[in-house]
């Protein structure tokens, strides 16, 4: 097993009890350390189920999921897997345990049984990374949505994980909250954190280097970002493409922007102006 492979999924299926239809099935995919993978799909496509399989919250009913070479079916390693792969969920309200910010961040490390000096250090670090240091002693309910979600991220980071899995973590936030959260994630990713982000906001694809599309529980597409951008993969799979993607293709087709430019309004505008003026 390659050292740099964090997830290795082999023909995974999962069926919720009392349900005949599997929520996901036949999923085989590999994710390397340091990647940012975005998984998109409609409601009910099985995205959240897949997320929970990645940190052994759910054990596949068929197939195997290896996390850093460890089989999630083995109860002895589930604990270690959750230390390495942390999750941030959709609703910030439903993942905050404590009524004080720093106590909330300490919850994970406390579960690991770390000595108190260690916990204090981790808490300080995680709050710093997420820009919440000034709120350490504040009550959690007084935070805004975006701040709550960053707090949830801080709680995950305090575990010192190798990978963060985001399950629709931005979907209940406003643009500002979304920007705050993705800003922190971008920095972490640059420092080598693996990110798996599940979303139905296709704009967020641009943050990632790999894209997976889930459709009715099946992996309909898995490849790198350029492949998604250049073809019309998304629309063919019935997923809305941000207008900037279409604009990007149109402009590129006409030779008005360079190949290396990302389909972001600011980048495209800048490039276009450069090209026209020259």
């Amino acid at each position: 097993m390659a050292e740099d492979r964090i997830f290795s999924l082999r023909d995974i299926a999962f069926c919720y009890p009392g349900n005949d239809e599997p929520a996901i099935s036949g999923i085989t995919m590999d994710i390397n350390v340091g990647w940012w993978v975005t998984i998109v799909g409609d409601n009910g496509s099985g995205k959240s189920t897949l997320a929970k399989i990645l940190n052994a919250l759910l054990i596949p009913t068929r197939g195997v999921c290896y996390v850093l070479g460890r089989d999630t079916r083995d109860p002895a390693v589930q604990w270690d897997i959750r230390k390495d792969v942390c999750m941030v969920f959709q609703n910030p309200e439903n993942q905050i345990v404590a009524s004080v910010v720093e106590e909330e961040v300490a919850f994970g490390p406390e579960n690991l049984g770390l000595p108190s000096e260690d916990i204090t250090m981790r808490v300080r670090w995680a709050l710093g990374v997420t820009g919440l240091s000034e709120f350490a002693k504040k009550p959690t309910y007084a935070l805004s949505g975006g701040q709550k979600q960053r707090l949830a991220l801080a709680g995950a980071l305090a575990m010192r994980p190798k990978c963060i899995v985001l399950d629709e973590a931005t979907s209940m936030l406003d643009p500002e909250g979304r920007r705050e959260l993705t800003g922190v994630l971008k920095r972490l990713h640059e420092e080598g954190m693996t990110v798996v982000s599940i979303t139905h906001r296709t704009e967020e694809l641009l943050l990632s280097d790999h894209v997976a599309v889930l459709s009715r529980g099946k992996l309909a597409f898995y490849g790198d970002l350029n492949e998604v951008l250049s073809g019309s993969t998304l629309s063919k799979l019935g997923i809305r493409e941000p207008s900037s993607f279409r604009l990007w293709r149109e402009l590129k087709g006409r030779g008005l922007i360079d190949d290396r430019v990302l389909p972001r309004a600011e980048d495209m505008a800048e490039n276009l102006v450069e090209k026209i003026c020259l």
Partner: protein
Amino acid sequence: MSASQGGAKEVTLGALFAAIVAVATMIHIPVPGYRVYFNLGEGVIYCIALLMGPKYGAICGGIGGAMADVVLGYPLWAPFTFVIKGAEGLLAGRFRQKRKQAVLIGACVMVAGYTLAAGLLYGWKVAPIELLTDLAQAGVGAAIALVALPYIERPVRRFIGK
């Protein structure tokens, strides 16, 4: 399927039940024509006890009731409430096969408990007055539970099954 260990689910259920009891205790319904208020706390305790059994009944009544006392500014009563409402939830849950009896037993425990506590704290002369308001409160609680329970039961059934 789920790799659950350590009873996180029991803890969160207990905690949220306690929270909902505390919140319901803080909701006051004025009685038309009188300067008397009733709260929904009792009713919610019975609902939880009848749905979830003695364990959660005791937890939500004891912790939730005591917390409401503290939040509302009556910390002295919290230990009494903890015992009385804990027992109330426990017994109502214990006899939940027969709903009306269960609620009746719970109500008796509550009324007797608070009358006793009032006797201890305010003197035995005051106890009869406490008894009257408790009786009314218990009646309201029982009424809420018996009327609301059928409505609550179905939507939450899929959660209980797990």
